[in-house]
C-alpha cells in the first residue's frame, strides 16, 4: 500500500484498502476558520447536535477576515468565538494568538505523522508534509466531523512524483510545485493523492515541504504527502501534543502514475494569470511591471520564506511604484523574524509588515487590487479576481523572486538585483 492507503486503512479499522473503496475514517483533527466555521456551526446546530465529539480535536482558527475587516466579518467571527466558548474548544485561536491556520497547526504540534485531518479550507492538504493524510472539505463535512469524529472518503489512487538531481540554490519547494502543476495541469491529480519522493525532496527543509503539500489542491489533488524522515522527526519531536505513527509506502505499492523530474537545471518559476498551471521559468517572464508584491500566506509565510525574502531585501529599497506587503504566518514566526532582524530589513526596505492573516491572498482585505493592477505573490492562486478587481492580475512565485521583483518593479530573476 501507499502511505495514503495505509493511513486510511488504519483509521477505517481495516487491514488494507484499495483505491476507489469508500470508507468511514476516524478523524484526528477537524479544522475550520472564521469564514467556513459559521456555515459549519449553523449546520451542526440545525441538525440538533449539542456536543462536539472531542473538544481537544476540533480546531478553530480566526485567520481570514480578522482583525475584523467589517461588521459582517465581526459578526461571523463572534459566531465562532461564542461556539468555541460554549463548547470549551481547547484550540480556538483568536486575534493575538492566531496565525494562518496551515502554518499554525503544525507549529503548535496539533497535527502529526499518520494523522487523518479534515479542514474546511482547501489548503488543509499542507499537513501532508508531516506524513499525515490531510484534505480540504466543505463546512457541512466539518459539521458532521465535529459531531461524530468521522468522515467518509473514497480511497484515492496515488501519483508518485520523483525529484532527482541537485536542487539549485535559488530554487525552492515553491518552484518544484509550480513546475509540477505547470506540467500536469490544474486537474492533473484530480481526486488523487500526490506522493512527493526522491533525493531532491530529502534535501528540502520542512518549510519547503509544507509549501509543496499546500499546493497539491492546485493540481486537483485530494492530498499531498511526504514520507516522514529525520527532518520530519526533528520537527515534530519538539512540538507533538499527541503520540503519532509513521507510515511509509511498501516497496510494492501500486501507483496510478510515476512522474519524474530532474531538478538540476530548474529555474525559479512564475505562474501567469489566471491559473496556477500557466507556469514559465522566470527567465521567460518578459517585461511584467508590478503594482504590488505580497510575501506570505499558508504557502510561503514561514520562517525560511521570510529569511529568503530578507536575504534579497537587505539594504535595498522596494521600487517606488510597488506596494510590498509581508505577512508572517504565525505569531511565533513574527517574533522569531523580529529576533533575527528580518523585520528591520523589511521596514527599512519600505515594505509593510502585517499581522498574520489570509487577507490579501484571497482578496479579503489588507491589499486589494484595483482594476488593471498587477500583483506578484508567494500565495497559491491567481484566478480571475482572486486578489480584488476582476480586471486585476496575479502572478505566483517563491519568496526570492517576489523580493527581487519588489525591488526591480517588474518580474525578475533574483540575480538581477544582486
Amino acid at each position, binding site marked *: 500500500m501507499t502511505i495514503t492507503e495505509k493511513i486510511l486503512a488504519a483509521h477505517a479499522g481495516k487491514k488494507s484498502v484499495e483505491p476507489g473503496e*469508500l470508507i468511514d475514517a476516524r478523524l484526528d483533527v477537524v479544522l475550520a476558520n472564521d*469564514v*467556513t466555521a*459559521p*456555515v459549519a456551526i*449553523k*449546520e*451542526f446546530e*440545525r*441538525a*440538533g*447536535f449539542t456536543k462536539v465529539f472531542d473538544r481537544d480535536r476540533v480546531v478553530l482558527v480566526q485567520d*481570514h*477576515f480578522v482583525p475584523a*475587516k*467589517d461588521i*459582517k*466579518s465581526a459578526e*461571523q467571527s463572534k459566531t465562532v468565538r461564542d461556539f468555541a466558548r460554549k463548547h470549551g474548544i481547547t484550540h480556538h485561536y483568536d486575534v493575538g494568538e492566531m496565525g494562518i491556520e496551515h502554518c499554525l497547526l503544525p507549529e503548535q504540534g496539533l497535527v502529526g505523522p499518520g494523522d487523518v485531518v479534515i*479542514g*474546511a*479550507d*482547501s489548503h*488543509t492538504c499542507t499537513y501532508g508534509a508531516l506524513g499525515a493524510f490531510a484534505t*480540504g*472539505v*466543505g*463546512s*457541512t*463535512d466539518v*459539521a*458532521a466531523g465535529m*459531531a*461524530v469524529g468521522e468522515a*467518509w472518503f*473514497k480511497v484515492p489512487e496515488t501519483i508518485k512524483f520523483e525529484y532527482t538531481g541537485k536542487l539549485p540554490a535559488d530554487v525552492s519547494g515553491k518552484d518544484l510545485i509550480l513546475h509540477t502543476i505547470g506540467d500536469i495541469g*490544474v*486537474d492533473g491529480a*484530480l*481526486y488523487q493523492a500526490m506522493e512527493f519522493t526522491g533525493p531532491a525532496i530529502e534535501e528540502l527543509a520542512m518549510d519547503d515541504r509544507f509549501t509543496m503539500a499546500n499546493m497539491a*489542491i492546485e493540481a*486537483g489533488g*485530494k492530498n499531498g504527502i511526504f514520507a516522514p524522515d529525520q527532518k520530519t522527526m526533528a520537527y515534530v519531536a519538539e512540538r507533538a501534543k499527541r503520540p503519532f505513527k509513521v507510515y511509509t509506502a511498501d516497496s510494492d505499492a501500486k501507483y496510478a502514475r510515476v512522474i519524474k523530474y530532474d531538478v538540476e537545471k530548474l529555474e525559479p518559476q512564475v505562474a501567469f494569470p489566471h*491559473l496556477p498551471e500557466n507556469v514559465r521559468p522566470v527567465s521567460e517572464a518578459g517585461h511584467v511591471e508590478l503594482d504590488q508584491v505580497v510575501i506570505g500566506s499558508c504557502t510561503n509565510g514561514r520562517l525560511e520564506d521570510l529569511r529568503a525574502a530578507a536575504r534579497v531585501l537587505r539594504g535595498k529599497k522596494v521600487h517606488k511604484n510597488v506596494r510590498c506587503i509581508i505577512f508572517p504566518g504565525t505569531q511565533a514566526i513574527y517574533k522569531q523574524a523580529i529576533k533575527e532582524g528580518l523585520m528591520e530589513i523589511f521596514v527599512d526596505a519600505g515594505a509593510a509588515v502585517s499581522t498574520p492573516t489570509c487577507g490579501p491572498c*484571497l*482578496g*479579503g482585505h489588507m491589499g*486589494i487590487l484595483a482594476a488593471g493592477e498587477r500583483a506578484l505573490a508567494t500565495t497559491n*492562486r491567481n*484566478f*480571475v*479576481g*482572486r486578489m480584488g478587481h*476582476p480586471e486585476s492580475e496575479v502572478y505566483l512565485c517563491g519568496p526570492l523572486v517576489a523580493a527581487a521583483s519588489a525591488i526591480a518593479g517588474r518580474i525578475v530573476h533574483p540575480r538581477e538585483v544582486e
Partner: protein
Amino acid sequence: MEFTGRTWLFGHDIDTDAIIPARYLNTVEPEELAKHCMEDGDPTFPAKVRSGDLIVAGKNFGCGSSREHAPIAIKACGVSCVIARSFARIFFRNAMNIGLPIFECPEAVDGIKEGDQVKIDARTGTIINLATGQKYQAKPLPDFIQNLIRSGGLMAFVRQRSQ
C-alpha cells in the same frame, strides 16, 4: 426527481472565486450569496438566471477554495443542477452534502448549446436536450452517495446513524 430548464454555458476550470468572490464571504445567507453568483465573469448572471435553469460547464468545475458558499450561491440563485465534464473534488462533496444535484457527462456538455431547454432525471442521470431530442447518460452516482442524498443530505445521514 426531474428538472427542466434553460442552460447557461461556462468554460473549463471555473473556480470558486468565479462562482462567489471572497469579498462576499462575510455572510452565510444564501439569498445574499445568490445576488453575486458568477458575477465576476458575467455581472448580469444573477439577474437573468431563472429558477430551474441549469449550468453546463467544462472540466474541473468548482476548483479552488473549499467554500461551501459556492454551491450554496448556485443553488440559491435558482439553478436546479450542474452538468460538467468533471468536477473538482471538494466542490463535488459540497454539492452532494447540501443537496445540489451535479452530473458528469462530457457528451452532454459537448452537445448542449446555451439556452437549450434540457430535461434531466436526477435519479437515473438521464439528460435529454429538448432542443435537439438528443439523449445522454451521465455517470451514475455511487450507491453510498445516493443513500446519502435519499437521507436528506450529510447532516441528516449522520444524525440518523448517531441515534
